[in-house]
Protein backbone atom coordinates (compact mmCIF):
# COMPACT_ATOMS: atom_id res chain seq x y z
CA UNK A 1 0.00 0.00 0.00
CA UNK A 2 1.26 3.41 -0.80
CA UNK A 3 0.39 6.44 1.21
CA UNK A 4 2.38 8.78 -0.97
CA UNK A 5 1.38 12.21 -2.17
CA UNK A 6 -0.76 12.70 -5.22
CA UNK A 7 1.03 12.54 -8.56
CA UNK A 8 0.57 16.22 -9.25
CA UNK A 9 0.01 18.37 -6.23
CA UNK A 10 -0.35 21.67 -8.03
CA UNK A 11 -3.58 20.77 -9.74
CA UNK A 12 -5.24 19.69 -6.51
CA UNK A 13 -7.29 16.57 -5.98
CA UNK A 14 -10.13 17.47 -8.31
CA UNK A 15 -7.99 18.45 -11.26
CA UNK A 16 -5.93 15.30 -11.03
CA UNK A 17 -8.94 13.07 -10.54
CA UNK A 18 -10.41 14.11 -13.85
CA UNK A 19 -7.28 12.96 -15.63
CA UNK A 20 -8.55 9.47 -14.99
CA UNK A 21 -11.05 8.51 -17.66
CA UNK A 22 -12.92 6.10 -15.48
CA UNK A 23 -13.23 8.69 -12.73
CA UNK A 24 -14.51 11.30 -15.19
CA UNK A 25 -17.05 8.92 -16.73
CA UNK A 26 -18.16 7.68 -13.32
CA UNK A 27 -18.45 11.23 -12.03
CA UNK A 28 -20.70 12.22 -14.91
CA UNK A 29 -22.93 9.12 -14.53
CA UNK A 30 -23.32 9.48 -10.78
CA UNK A 31 -23.58 13.26 -11.12
CA UNK A 32 -26.62 12.92 -13.39
CA UNK A 33 -28.51 11.00 -10.73
CA UNK A 34 -27.40 13.18 -7.84
CA UNK A 35 -28.51 16.18 -9.86
CA UNK A 36 -31.82 14.52 -10.75
CA UNK A 37 -32.38 13.83 -7.07
CA UNK A 38 -31.59 17.43 -6.12
CA UNK A 39 -33.78 18.91 -8.87
CA UNK A 40 -36.64 16.67 -7.75
CA UNK A 41 -36.90 18.75 -4.57
CA UNK A 42 -38.01 21.77 -6.61
CA UNK A 43 -39.27 20.34 -9.87
CA UNK A 44 -40.42 17.08 -11.46
CA UNK A 45 -42.31 16.82 -14.78
CA UNK A 46 -45.32 15.41 -12.90
CA UNK A 47 -46.20 14.89 -9.27
CA UNK A 48 -44.38 11.62 -8.55
CA UNK A 49 -47.11 10.41 -6.20
CA UNK A 50 -50.21 11.66 -8.05
CA UNK A 51 -52.43 8.84 -9.25
CA UNK A 52 -53.96 9.22 -12.72
CA UNK A 53 -55.62 5.92 -13.45
CA UNK A 54 -56.81 7.08 -16.87
CA UNK A 55 -53.15 7.37 -17.92
CA UNK A 56 -52.04 4.02 -16.54
CA UNK A 57 -49.42 1.78 -18.21
CA UNK A 58 -48.66 4.30 -20.97
CA UNK A 59 -45.55 3.50 -23.00
CA UNK A 60 -42.80 6.11 -23.19
CA UNK A 61 -43.88 9.13 -25.24
CA UNK A 62 -43.19 12.84 -25.52
CA UNK A 63 -45.71 13.42 -22.71
CA UNK A 64 -44.32 10.76 -20.36
CA UNK A 65 -40.68 10.25 -21.30
CA UNK A 66 -40.36 6.94 -19.45
CA UNK A 67 -44.07 6.07 -19.61
CA UNK A 68 -46.44 5.61 -16.68
CA UNK A 69 -46.97 2.84 -14.15
CA UNK A 70 -50.09 0.85 -13.23
CA UNK A 71 -51.46 3.81 -11.27
CA UNK A 72 -50.70 6.29 -14.04
CA UNK A 73 -47.78 7.83 -12.16
CA UNK A 74 -45.05 9.34 -14.31
CA UNK A 75 -42.04 7.01 -14.19
CA UNK A 76 -39.52 9.73 -15.04
CA UNK A 77 -40.66 11.78 -12.05
CA UNK A 78 -40.62 8.72 -9.80
CA UNK A 79 -37.06 7.92 -10.84
CA UNK A 80 -36.01 11.47 -10.01
CA UNK A 81 -37.55 11.29 -6.53
CA UNK A 82 -36.32 7.71 -6.15
CA UNK A 83 -32.77 8.91 -6.83
CA UNK A 84 -32.79 11.05 -3.72
CA UNK A 85 -34.16 8.22 -1.56
CA UNK A 86 -31.57 5.71 -2.78
CA UNK A 87 -28.66 8.11 -2.69
CA UNK A 88 -29.60 9.47 0.73
CA UNK A 89 -29.97 5.97 2.23
CA UNK A 90 -26.63 4.78 0.84
CA UNK A 91 -24.85 8.03 1.69
CA UNK A 92 -25.96 8.11 5.31
CA UNK A 93 -25.19 4.41 5.64
CA UNK A 94 -21.62 5.06 4.48
CA UNK A 95 -21.50 7.94 6.97
CA UNK A 96 -22.50 5.60 9.79
CA UNK A 97 -19.87 3.11 8.69
CA UNK A 98 -17.13 5.74 8.67
CA UNK A 99 -18.20 7.55 11.82
CA UNK A 100 -18.30 4.36 13.87
CA UNK A 101 -15.88 2.12 12.01
CA UNK A 102 -12.88 4.39 11.53
CA UNK A 103 -12.49 5.43 15.20
CA UNK A 104 -12.89 1.78 16.24
CA UNK A 105 -10.26 0.69 13.73
CA UNK A 106 -7.85 3.43 14.79
CA UNK A 107 -8.39 2.59 18.43
CA UNK A 108 -7.75 -1.10 17.78
CA UNK A 109 -4.56 -0.26 15.87
CA UNK A 110 -3.31 2.09 18.57
CA UNK A 111 -3.74 -0.68 21.13
CA UNK A 112 -2.62 -3.49 18.88
CA UNK A 113 -2.80 -6.99 20.39
CA UNK A 114 -4.45 -5.64 23.54
CA UNK A 115 -7.79 -6.77 24.86
CA UNK A 116 -9.44 -3.72 23.24
CA UNK A 117 -8.07 -4.71 19.85
CA UNK A 118 -9.22 -8.28 20.35
CA UNK A 119 -12.76 -7.28 21.38
CA UNK A 120 -13.17 -4.80 18.54
CA UNK A 121 -11.93 -7.19 15.90
CA UNK A 122 -13.95 -10.15 17.16
CA UNK A 123 -17.08 -7.99 17.24
CA UNK A 124 -16.30 -7.03 13.66
CA UNK A 125 -15.99 -10.65 12.66
CA UNK A 126 -19.33 -11.32 14.27
CA UNK A 127 -21.11 -8.58 12.32
CA UNK A 128 -19.36 -9.77 9.18
CA UNK A 129 -20.83 -13.21 9.64
CA UNK A 130 -24.30 -11.78 9.12
CA UNK A 131 -24.87 -11.16 5.43
CA UNK A 132 -26.00 -7.51 5.06
CA UNK A 133 -29.40 -8.60 3.92
CA UNK A 134 -29.91 -10.71 7.04
CA UNK A 135 -29.05 -7.78 9.29
CA UNK A 136 -31.61 -5.77 7.41
CA UNK A 137 -34.21 -8.48 7.72
CA UNK A 138 -33.58 -8.82 11.44
CA UNK A 139 -33.75 -5.07 12.01
CA UNK A 140 -36.90 -4.66 10.00
CA UNK A 141 -38.43 -7.68 11.69
CA UNK A 142 -37.96 -5.88 14.98
CA UNK A 143 -38.62 -2.25 14.13
CA UNK A 144 -40.75 -2.56 11.02
CA UNK A 145 -39.87 -1.56 7.48
CA UNK A 146 -38.84 2.03 6.76
CA UNK A 147 -36.11 4.01 5.02
CA UNK A 148 -34.52 4.81 8.40
CA UNK A 149 -34.26 1.13 9.30
CA UNK A 150 -32.80 0.38 5.88
CA UNK A 151 -30.14 3.03 6.59
CA UNK A 152 -29.36 1.50 9.97
CA UNK A 153 -29.16 -2.00 8.52
CA UNK A 154 -26.82 -1.03 5.71
CA UNK A 155 -24.85 1.25 8.02
CA UNK A 156 -24.28 -1.49 10.59
CA UNK A 157 -22.86 -3.67 7.86
CA UNK A 158 -20.50 -0.86 6.83
CA UNK A 159 -18.97 -0.50 10.30
CA UNK A 160 -16.72 -3.59 10.23
CA UNK A 161 -15.67 -2.79 6.67
CA UNK A 162 -14.25 0.58 7.70
CA UNK A 163 -12.96 -0.66 11.04
CA UNK A 164 -10.90 -3.38 9.36
CA UNK A 165 -9.63 -1.05 6.68
CA UNK A 166 -8.64 1.67 9.15
CA UNK A 167 -6.97 -0.82 11.48
CA UNK A 168 -5.01 -2.54 8.73
CA UNK A 169 -3.76 0.70 7.21
CA UNK A 170 -3.03 2.25 10.61
CA UNK A 171 -0.97 -0.76 11.71
CA UNK A 172 1.39 -0.23 8.79
CA UNK A 173 1.69 3.45 9.61
CA UNK A 174 2.42 2.83 13.29
CA UNK A 175 5.76 1.30 12.30
CA UNK A 176 6.85 4.43 10.43
CA UNK A 177 9.63 6.71 11.70
CA UNK A 178 7.53 9.83 11.78
CA UNK A 179 5.09 8.16 14.13
CA UNK A 180 8.01 7.18 16.32
CA UNK A 181 9.13 10.81 16.18
CA UNK A 182 5.67 11.95 17.25
CA UNK A 183 5.74 9.48 20.13
CA UNK A 184 9.15 10.68 21.20
CA UNK A 185 7.78 14.22 21.07
CA UNK A 186 5.32 13.10 23.70
CA UNK A 187 2.12 12.85 21.70
CA UNK A 188 -0.37 10.30 22.95
CA UNK A 189 -1.94 7.55 20.88
CA UNK A 190 -5.15 9.54 20.54
CA UNK A 191 -3.43 12.61 19.08
CA UNK A 192 -1.20 10.56 16.82
CA UNK A 193 -4.20 8.71 15.45
CA UNK A 194 -6.01 11.95 14.75
CA UNK A 195 -3.12 14.10 13.54
CA UNK A 196 -0.88 11.63 11.71
CA UNK A 197 -2.67 8.39 10.97
CA UNK A 198 -6.09 9.63 9.91
CA UNK A 199 -4.88 12.12 7.27
CA UNK A 200 -2.67 9.43 5.79
CA UNK A 201 -5.40 6.84 5.43
CA UNK A 202 -7.90 9.33 4.00
CA UNK A 203 -7.24 8.15 0.42
CA UNK A 204 -8.08 4.59 1.27
CA UNK A 205 -11.19 5.67 3.13
CA UNK A 206 -12.41 7.72 0.18
CA UNK A 207 -11.94 4.82 -2.23
CA UNK A 208 -13.65 2.38 0.11
CA UNK A 209 -16.37 4.96 0.74
CA UNK A 210 -17.24 5.05 -2.97
CA UNK A 211 -17.35 1.26 -3.10
CA UNK A 212 -19.58 1.01 -0.03
CA UNK A 213 -21.74 3.77 -1.47
CA UNK A 214 -22.38 1.69 -4.57
CA UNK A 215 -23.02 -1.43 -2.50
CA UNK A 216 -25.41 0.64 -0.40
CA UNK A 217 -27.41 1.63 -3.49
CA UNK A 218 -27.69 -2.05 -4.43
CA UNK A 219 -28.62 -3.07 -0.88
CA UNK A 220 -31.25 -0.35 -0.65
CA UNK A 221 -32.68 -1.45 -3.98
CA UNK A 222 -32.88 -5.06 -2.79
CA UNK A 223 -34.46 -4.07 0.53
CA UNK A 224 -37.08 -1.83 -0.98
CA UNK A 225 -37.74 -4.48 -3.61
CA UNK A 226 -38.78 -6.95 -0.90
CA UNK A 227 -40.73 -4.21 0.86
CA UNK A 228 -38.28 -3.52 3.68
CA UNK A 229 -37.11 -0.09 2.49
CA UNK A 230 -38.84 3.26 2.03
CA UNK A 231 -42.59 2.77 2.29
CA UNK A 232 -45.19 3.93 -0.23
CA UNK A 233 -46.13 6.47 -1.38
CA UNK A 234 -42.43 7.52 -1.31
CA UNK A 235 -41.08 6.29 -4.65
CA UNK A 236 -38.00 4.09 -4.47
CA UNK A 237 -36.23 2.29 -7.29
CA UNK A 238 -36.52 -1.11 -5.65
CA UNK A 239 -40.24 -0.78 -5.01
CA UNK A 240 -40.80 0.41 -8.56
CA UNK A 241 -39.19 -2.82 -9.72
CA UNK A 242 -41.37 -4.86 -7.39
CA UNK A 243 -44.45 -3.17 -8.90
CA UNK A 244 -43.06 -3.68 -12.38
CA UNK A 245 -42.67 -7.39 -11.79
CA UNK A 246 -46.41 -7.99 -11.59
CA UNK A 247 -46.89 -6.04 -14.81
CA UNK A 248 -43.88 -7.36 -16.66
CA UNK A 249 -45.72 -8.89 -19.60
CA UNK A 250 -48.03 -5.87 -20.00
CA UNK A 251 -45.61 -3.01 -19.45
CA UNK A 252 -41.93 -4.00 -19.63
CA UNK A 253 -40.93 -0.32 -19.64
CA UNK A 254 -41.90 -0.19 -15.96
CA UNK A 255 -39.04 -2.58 -15.24
CA UNK A 256 -36.48 -1.20 -17.65
CA UNK A 257 -36.06 2.37 -16.47
CA UNK A 258 -35.73 1.98 -12.68
CA UNK A 259 -33.35 -0.94 -13.23
CA UNK A 260 -31.24 1.07 -15.62
CA UNK A 261 -31.15 3.92 -13.09
CA UNK A 262 -29.73 1.57 -10.44
CA UNK A 263 -27.17 0.08 -12.82
CA UNK A 264 -25.94 3.46 -14.05
CA UNK A 265 -25.63 4.94 -10.56
CA UNK A 266 -23.78 1.92 -9.23
CA UNK A 267 -21.60 1.72 -12.33
CA UNK A 268 -20.76 5.41 -11.99
CA UNK A 269 -19.72 5.01 -8.36
CA UNK A 270 -17.62 1.92 -9.14
CA UNK A 271 -15.86 3.71 -11.97
CA UNK A 272 -15.16 6.66 -9.70
CA UNK A 273 -13.76 4.31 -7.08
CA UNK A 274 -11.55 2.57 -9.63
CA UNK A 275 -10.30 5.85 -11.00
CA UNK A 276 -9.51 7.22 -7.55
CA UNK A 277 -7.71 4.08 -6.50
CA UNK A 278 -5.52 4.10 -9.57
CA UNK A 279 -4.68 7.72 -8.87
CA UNK A 280 -3.93 7.28 -5.21
CA UNK A 281 -1.96 4.15 -5.77
CA UNK A 282 -0.54 3.60 -9.25
CA UNK A 283 1.15 0.42 -8.03
CA UNK A 284 -2.24 -1.13 -7.45
CA UNK A 285 -3.38 -0.36 -10.97
CA UNK A 286 -5.33 -3.47 -11.61
CA UNK A 287 -8.90 -4.53 -11.74
CA UNK A 288 -11.07 -4.20 -8.74
CA UNK A 289 -12.22 -7.42 -7.24
Amino acid at each position, binding site marked *: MSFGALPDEKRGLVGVAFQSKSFALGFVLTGIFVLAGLISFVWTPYDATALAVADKLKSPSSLHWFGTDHFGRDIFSMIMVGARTSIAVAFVAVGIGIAAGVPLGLWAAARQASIVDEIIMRANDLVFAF*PALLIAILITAVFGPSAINAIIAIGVFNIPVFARLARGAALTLWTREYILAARVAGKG*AFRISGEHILPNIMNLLIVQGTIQFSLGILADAALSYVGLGAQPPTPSWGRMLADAQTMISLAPHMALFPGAAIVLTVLGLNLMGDGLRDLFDPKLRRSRS
Partner: protein
Amino acid sequence: MRAGGNASGPSRSLEPMAPYLLKRVISLVLSLLAASVVIFVVLQVVPGDPASYMLGMNAQPETVEALRQQMGLNDPIVWRYLSWVAGLTHGDFGVSYTYKVPTGELIAQRLWVSLPLALYALFLSTIIALPIGIISAAKRNSAADYGIMGVTQLGIAVPNFWFAMLLVLLFSITLRWFSAGGFPGWNAGFFVAMKALTLPAIALALPQASILARVMRSSLLDTLSEDYIRTARAKGLSRGQTLVRHAVRNAMIPVLTILGLQFSFLLAGAIIIENVFYLPGLGRLVFQGITQRDLIVVQSVVMLLVFAVILVTFLVDIAYAMVDPRLRGRA
Protein backbone atom coordinates in the same frame (compact mmCIF):
# COMPACT_ATOMS: atom_id res chain seq x y z
CA MET B 1 1.60 0.86 24.93
CA ARG B 2 1.54 -0.67 21.55
CA ALA B 3 3.84 -3.48 20.47
CA GLY B 4 6.30 -2.65 17.73
CA GLY B 5 6.07 -5.23 14.97
CA ASN B 6 3.36 -7.18 13.29
CA ALA B 7 1.87 -10.06 15.26
CA SER B 8 2.96 -12.53 12.62
CA GLY B 9 6.70 -12.00 12.88
CA PRO B 10 9.12 -14.68 11.79
CA SER B 11 9.43 -16.14 15.29
CA ARG B 12 5.73 -17.05 15.41
CA SER B 13 5.29 -17.97 11.82
CA LEU B 14 5.85 -21.70 11.75
CA GLU B 15 3.45 -22.88 14.40
CA PRO B 16 2.38 -26.50 14.41
CA MET B 17 -1.08 -27.36 13.16
CA ALA B 18 -2.69 -28.82 16.29
CA PRO B 19 -2.65 -25.73 18.57
CA TYR B 20 -3.76 -23.61 15.65
CA LEU B 21 -6.65 -25.96 14.99
CA LEU B 22 -7.64 -25.90 18.65
CA LYS B 23 -7.57 -22.09 18.72
CA ARG B 24 -9.68 -21.91 15.59
CA VAL B 25 -12.21 -24.44 16.90
CA ILE B 26 -12.57 -22.50 20.15
CA SER B 27 -13.09 -19.27 18.25
CA LEU B 28 -15.58 -21.03 15.98
CA VAL B 29 -17.64 -22.15 18.99
CA LEU B 30 -17.40 -18.69 20.57
CA SER B 31 -18.53 -17.01 17.33
CA LEU B 32 -21.49 -19.33 17.08
CA LEU B 33 -22.45 -18.67 20.69
CA ALA B 34 -22.12 -14.92 20.24
CA ALA B 35 -24.18 -15.04 17.05
CA SER B 36 -26.89 -17.09 18.75
CA VAL B 37 -27.07 -14.64 21.68
CA VAL B 38 -27.34 -11.67 19.30
CA ILE B 39 -30.06 -13.28 17.20
CA PHE B 40 -32.00 -14.46 20.24
CA VAL B 41 -31.83 -11.11 22.04
CA VAL B 42 -32.72 -9.10 18.94
CA LEU B 43 -35.81 -11.16 18.33
CA GLN B 44 -36.94 -10.83 21.94
CA VAL B 45 -37.36 -7.11 21.34
CA VAL B 46 -39.88 -7.69 18.56
CA PRO B 47 -43.14 -6.05 19.48
CA GLY B 48 -46.25 -8.20 19.45
CA ASP B 49 -47.04 -11.38 21.29
CA PRO B 50 -46.85 -14.51 19.15
CA ALA B 51 -49.48 -16.22 21.27
CA SER B 52 -52.12 -13.54 20.79
CA TYR B 53 -51.12 -13.32 17.15
CA MET B 54 -51.80 -17.03 16.70
CA LEU B 55 -55.17 -16.88 18.42
CA GLY B 56 -56.41 -13.72 16.73
CA MET B 57 -57.78 -10.43 18.04
CA ASN B 58 -60.81 -11.82 19.85
CA ALA B 59 -59.08 -14.45 21.95
CA GLN B 60 -59.82 -14.61 25.67
CA PRO B 61 -56.89 -13.43 27.81
CA GLU B 62 -56.98 -16.76 29.66
CA THR B 63 -56.63 -18.70 26.42
CA VAL B 64 -53.71 -16.54 25.37
CA GLU B 65 -52.14 -17.03 28.78
CA ALA B 66 -52.58 -20.79 28.55
CA LEU B 67 -50.99 -20.83 25.13
CA ARG B 68 -48.08 -18.66 26.31
CA GLN B 69 -47.56 -21.16 29.09
CA GLN B 70 -47.71 -24.06 26.67
CA MET B 71 -45.28 -22.39 24.21
CA GLY B 72 -42.86 -21.73 27.04
CA LEU B 73 -43.09 -17.97 26.54
CA ASN B 74 -43.48 -17.38 30.26
CA ASP B 75 -40.20 -19.05 31.17
CA PRO B 76 -37.30 -16.84 32.19
CA ILE B 77 -35.41 -15.47 29.20
CA VAL B 78 -32.13 -17.19 30.04
CA TRP B 79 -33.94 -20.49 30.32
CA ARG B 80 -35.60 -20.00 26.95
CA TYR B 81 -32.26 -19.16 25.35
CA LEU B 82 -30.59 -22.21 26.82
CA SER B 83 -33.35 -24.56 25.77
CA TRP B 84 -33.25 -23.08 22.26
CA VAL B 85 -29.48 -23.61 21.98
CA ALA B 86 -29.70 -27.05 23.55
CA GLY B 87 -32.31 -27.92 20.95
CA LEU B 88 -30.16 -26.57 18.14
CA THR B 89 -27.28 -28.84 19.04
CA HIS B 90 -29.35 -31.87 18.17
CA GLY B 91 -31.25 -30.34 15.29
CA ASP B 92 -34.40 -29.40 17.23
CA PHE B 93 -35.32 -25.86 16.18
CA GLY B 94 -38.60 -25.74 18.10
CA VAL B 95 -42.14 -25.79 16.75
CA SER B 96 -43.28 -23.16 14.27
CA TYR B 97 -45.97 -20.89 15.71
CA THR B 98 -48.00 -20.74 12.51
CA TYR B 99 -47.33 -24.03 10.76
CA LYS B 100 -47.53 -26.04 14.00
CA VAL B 101 -44.84 -28.40 12.75
CA PRO B 102 -41.22 -28.67 13.86
CA THR B 103 -39.26 -25.75 12.38
CA GLY B 104 -36.45 -28.13 11.53
CA GLU B 105 -38.75 -29.97 9.12
CA LEU B 106 -39.87 -26.72 7.51
CA ILE B 107 -36.30 -25.61 7.06
CA ALA B 108 -35.14 -28.95 5.71
CA GLN B 109 -37.97 -28.89 3.20
CA ARG B 110 -37.10 -25.35 2.05
CA LEU B 111 -33.39 -26.07 2.10
CA TRP B 112 -34.04 -28.59 -0.67
CA VAL B 113 -34.81 -25.60 -2.87
CA SER B 114 -32.38 -22.98 -1.59
CA LEU B 115 -29.32 -25.19 -1.26
CA PRO B 116 -29.46 -26.69 -4.78
CA LEU B 117 -30.14 -23.18 -6.10
CA ALA B 118 -27.07 -21.77 -4.37
CA LEU B 119 -24.90 -24.69 -5.50
CA TYR B 120 -26.20 -24.43 -9.05
CA ALA B 121 -25.40 -20.72 -9.09
CA LEU B 122 -21.97 -21.34 -7.59
CA PHE B 123 -21.31 -23.94 -10.27
CA LEU B 124 -22.40 -21.62 -13.09
CA SER B 125 -20.46 -18.73 -11.66
CA THR B 126 -17.29 -20.81 -11.38
CA ILE B 127 -17.35 -22.39 -14.83
CA ILE B 128 -18.02 -19.02 -16.43
CA ALA B 129 -15.78 -16.81 -14.34
CA LEU B 130 -12.54 -18.79 -14.15
CA PRO B 131 -11.94 -19.24 -17.90
CA ILE B 132 -12.97 -15.63 -18.53
CA GLY B 133 -10.63 -14.35 -15.84
CA ILE B 134 -7.76 -16.48 -17.13
CA ILE B 135 -8.27 -15.34 -20.74
CA SER B 136 -8.47 -11.76 -19.59
CA ALA B 137 -5.19 -11.97 -17.69
CA ALA B 138 -3.36 -14.02 -20.35
CA LYS B 139 -4.38 -11.53 -23.04
CA ARG B 140 -3.90 -8.46 -20.91
CA ASN B 141 -4.74 -5.12 -22.57
CA SER B 142 -6.20 -6.87 -25.60
CA ALA B 143 -9.66 -6.16 -26.97
CA ALA B 144 -10.87 -9.33 -25.25
CA ASP B 145 -9.51 -8.13 -21.94
CA TYR B 146 -11.18 -4.74 -22.23
CA GLY B 147 -14.42 -6.36 -23.34
CA ILE B 148 -14.40 -8.78 -20.41
CA MET B 149 -13.52 -6.04 -17.93
CA GLY B 150 -16.34 -3.88 -19.28
CA VAL B 151 -18.91 -6.63 -19.08
CA THR B 152 -17.88 -7.66 -15.56
CA GLN B 153 -17.92 -4.01 -14.47
CA LEU B 154 -21.53 -3.94 -15.64
CA GLY B 155 -22.22 -7.33 -14.06
CA ILE B 156 -21.21 -6.02 -10.66
CA ALA B 157 -23.51 -3.03 -11.03
CA VAL B 158 -26.62 -5.01 -11.99
CA PRO B 159 -28.96 -5.90 -9.13
CA ASN B 160 -29.51 -9.63 -9.51
CA PHE B 161 -33.27 -9.40 -8.98
CA TRP B 162 -33.52 -6.94 -11.86
CA PHE B 163 -31.40 -9.18 -14.05
CA ALA B 164 -33.80 -11.97 -13.06
CA MET B 165 -36.74 -9.91 -14.31
CA LEU B 166 -34.97 -9.27 -17.61
CA LEU B 167 -34.35 -13.01 -17.95
CA VAL B 168 -38.02 -13.68 -17.34
CA LEU B 169 -38.94 -11.06 -19.91
CA LEU B 170 -36.68 -12.63 -22.53
CA PHE B 171 -36.79 -16.36 -21.86
CA SER B 172 -40.23 -16.81 -20.33
CA ILE B 173 -42.46 -14.15 -21.81
CA THR B 174 -40.91 -13.58 -25.24
CA LEU B 175 -39.24 -16.88 -26.08
CA ARG B 176 -41.32 -19.10 -23.77
CA TRP B 177 -38.39 -21.43 -23.10
CA PHE B 178 -38.75 -21.42 -19.33
CA SER B 179 -41.63 -20.90 -16.97
CA ALA B 180 -41.65 -17.53 -15.23
CA GLY B 181 -41.57 -18.99 -11.74
CA GLY B 182 -42.68 -21.67 -9.34
CA PHE B 183 -41.05 -24.95 -8.50
CA PRO B 184 -42.48 -28.35 -9.46
CA GLY B 185 -40.55 -30.15 -6.70
CA TRP B 186 -37.88 -32.80 -7.02
CA ASN B 187 -40.53 -35.52 -7.42
CA ALA B 188 -41.30 -34.11 -10.85
CA GLY B 189 -37.92 -35.38 -11.98
CA PHE B 190 -34.39 -34.06 -11.67
CA PHE B 191 -34.27 -32.26 -15.00
CA VAL B 192 -37.68 -30.68 -14.65
CA ALA B 193 -36.68 -29.33 -11.25
CA MET B 194 -33.28 -28.17 -12.46
CA LYS B 195 -34.93 -26.41 -15.37
CA ALA B 196 -37.10 -24.46 -12.95
CA LEU B 197 -33.96 -23.43 -11.07
CA THR B 198 -32.01 -22.45 -14.17
CA LEU B 199 -33.12 -18.84 -14.62
CA PRO B 200 -32.86 -18.10 -10.86
CA ALA B 201 -29.38 -19.64 -10.80
CA ILE B 202 -28.23 -17.57 -13.77
CA ALA B 203 -29.58 -14.41 -12.17
CA LEU B 204 -27.88 -15.24 -8.89
CA ALA B 205 -24.62 -16.18 -10.61
CA LEU B 206 -24.13 -13.04 -12.70
CA PRO B 207 -22.79 -10.60 -10.10
CA GLN B 208 -20.81 -13.34 -8.38
CA ALA B 209 -19.27 -14.46 -11.65
CA SER B 210 -18.29 -10.88 -12.43
CA ILE B 211 -16.53 -10.51 -9.10
CA LEU B 212 -14.90 -13.92 -9.40
CA ALA B 213 -13.63 -13.27 -12.94
CA ARG B 214 -12.03 -10.03 -11.73
CA VAL B 215 -10.41 -11.72 -8.75
CA MET B 216 -9.14 -14.50 -11.01
CA ARG B 217 -7.71 -11.96 -13.43
CA SER B 218 -5.96 -9.78 -10.89
CA SER B 219 -4.64 -12.75 -8.95
CA LEU B 220 -3.28 -14.30 -12.14
CA LEU B 221 -1.68 -11.01 -13.17
CA ASP B 222 0.05 -10.91 -9.80
CA THR B 223 1.36 -14.43 -10.21
CA LEU B 224 2.47 -13.83 -13.77
CA SER B 225 4.87 -11.13 -12.59
CA GLU B 226 6.60 -13.51 -10.16
CA ASP B 227 10.19 -14.61 -10.66
CA TYR B 228 9.36 -18.32 -10.84
CA ILE B 229 7.24 -17.64 -13.92
CA ARG B 230 10.26 -16.15 -15.62
CA THR B 231 12.28 -19.15 -14.50
CA ALA B 232 9.70 -21.52 -15.94
CA ARG B 233 9.78 -19.68 -19.24
CA ALA B 234 13.59 -19.65 -19.17
CA LYS B 235 13.79 -23.39 -18.70
CA GLY B 236 11.85 -23.77 -21.92
CA LEU B 237 8.17 -24.06 -21.02
CA SER B 238 5.80 -22.43 -23.48
CA ARG B 239 3.57 -19.56 -22.43
CA GLY B 240 0.58 -21.90 -22.28
CA GLN B 241 2.41 -24.52 -20.22
CA THR B 242 3.66 -21.91 -17.80
CA LEU B 243 0.18 -20.54 -17.44
CA VAL B 244 -1.44 -23.87 -16.70
CA ARG B 245 1.30 -25.52 -14.64
CA HIS B 246 2.55 -22.63 -12.58
CA ALA B 247 0.55 -19.45 -12.80
CA VAL B 248 -3.07 -20.58 -12.60
CA ARG B 249 -2.36 -23.06 -9.85
CA ASN B 250 -0.79 -20.43 -7.64
CA ALA B 251 -3.37 -17.83 -8.54
CA MET B 252 -6.15 -20.09 -7.29
CA ILE B 253 -5.58 -19.36 -3.59
CA PRO B 254 -7.35 -15.99 -3.38
CA VAL B 255 -9.92 -17.27 -5.83
CA LEU B 256 -10.79 -20.13 -3.51
CA THR B 257 -11.31 -17.73 -0.60
CA ILE B 258 -13.73 -15.66 -2.60
CA LEU B 259 -15.44 -18.84 -3.73
CA GLY B 260 -15.92 -19.89 -0.11
CA LEU B 261 -17.33 -16.51 0.84
CA GLN B 262 -19.56 -16.44 -2.18
CA PHE B 263 -21.32 -19.62 -1.24
CA SER B 264 -22.78 -18.03 1.86
CA PHE B 265 -23.67 -14.88 -0.03
CA LEU B 266 -25.41 -17.00 -2.65
CA LEU B 267 -27.41 -18.70 0.06
CA ALA B 268 -28.45 -15.33 1.49
CA GLY B 269 -28.88 -13.79 -1.96
CA ALA B 270 -31.23 -16.61 -2.84
CA ILE B 271 -33.65 -14.99 -0.37
CA ILE B 272 -34.29 -12.16 -2.83
CA ILE B 273 -34.18 -14.21 -6.02
CA GLU B 274 -36.68 -16.70 -4.60
CA ASN B 275 -39.13 -13.83 -4.39
CA VAL B 276 -38.74 -13.03 -8.07
CA PHE B 277 -39.42 -16.61 -9.14
CA TYR B 278 -41.90 -17.57 -6.40
CA LEU B 279 -39.65 -20.40 -5.29
CA PRO B 280 -40.60 -22.08 -2.00
CA GLY B 281 -37.15 -21.68 -0.44
CA LEU B 282 -35.71 -20.33 2.81
CA GLY B 283 -36.20 -16.74 1.66
CA ARG B 284 -39.94 -17.07 1.30
CA LEU B 285 -40.04 -18.85 4.64
CA VAL B 286 -38.25 -15.95 6.35
CA PHE B 287 -40.51 -13.29 4.87
CA GLN B 288 -43.62 -15.23 5.79
CA GLY B 289 -42.15 -15.69 9.24
CA ILE B 290 -41.68 -11.94 9.59
CA THR B 291 -45.17 -11.00 8.50
CA GLN B 292 -46.77 -13.72 10.63
CA ARG B 293 -44.60 -13.04 13.69
CA ASP B 294 -43.38 -16.62 13.52
CA LEU B 295 -40.23 -15.72 15.41
CA ILE B 296 -39.00 -19.26 15.89
CA VAL B 297 -38.83 -19.65 12.13
CA VAL B 298 -37.07 -16.30 11.54
CA GLN B 299 -34.65 -16.99 14.37
CA SER B 300 -33.82 -20.46 13.10
CA VAL B 301 -33.32 -19.50 9.47
CA VAL B 302 -31.12 -16.53 10.35
CA MET B 303 -29.11 -18.71 12.74
CA LEU B 304 -28.71 -21.35 10.06
CA LEU B 305 -27.44 -18.86 7.47
CA VAL B 306 -25.03 -17.24 9.92
CA PHE B 307 -23.87 -20.71 10.92
CA ALA B 308 -23.18 -21.44 7.26
CA VAL B 309 -21.12 -18.25 6.86
CA ILE B 310 -19.08 -18.87 10.01
CA LEU B 311 -18.50 -22.51 9.13
CA VAL B 312 -17.39 -21.77 5.58
CA THR B 313 -15.00 -19.06 6.78
CA PHE B 314 -13.62 -21.53 9.33
CA LEU B 315 -13.10 -24.23 6.70
CA VAL B 316 -11.38 -21.82 4.32
CA ASP B 317 -9.04 -20.69 7.12
CA ILE B 318 -8.18 -24.27 7.99
CA ALA B 319 -7.58 -25.16 4.37
CA TYR B 320 -5.25 -22.19 4.09
CA ALA B 321 -3.31 -23.07 7.20
CA MET B 322 -2.84 -26.62 5.94
CA VAL B 323 -1.43 -25.35 2.67
CA ASP B 324 0.57 -22.44 4.06
CA PRO B 325 2.10 -22.91 7.54
CA ARG B 326 2.99 -19.22 7.73
CA LEU B 327 -0.67 -18.38 8.21
CA ARG B 328 -0.99 -20.38 11.42
CA GLY B 329 0.44 -17.60 13.54
CA ARG B 330 -2.48 -15.35 12.70
CA ALA B 331 -5.12 -17.22 14.63
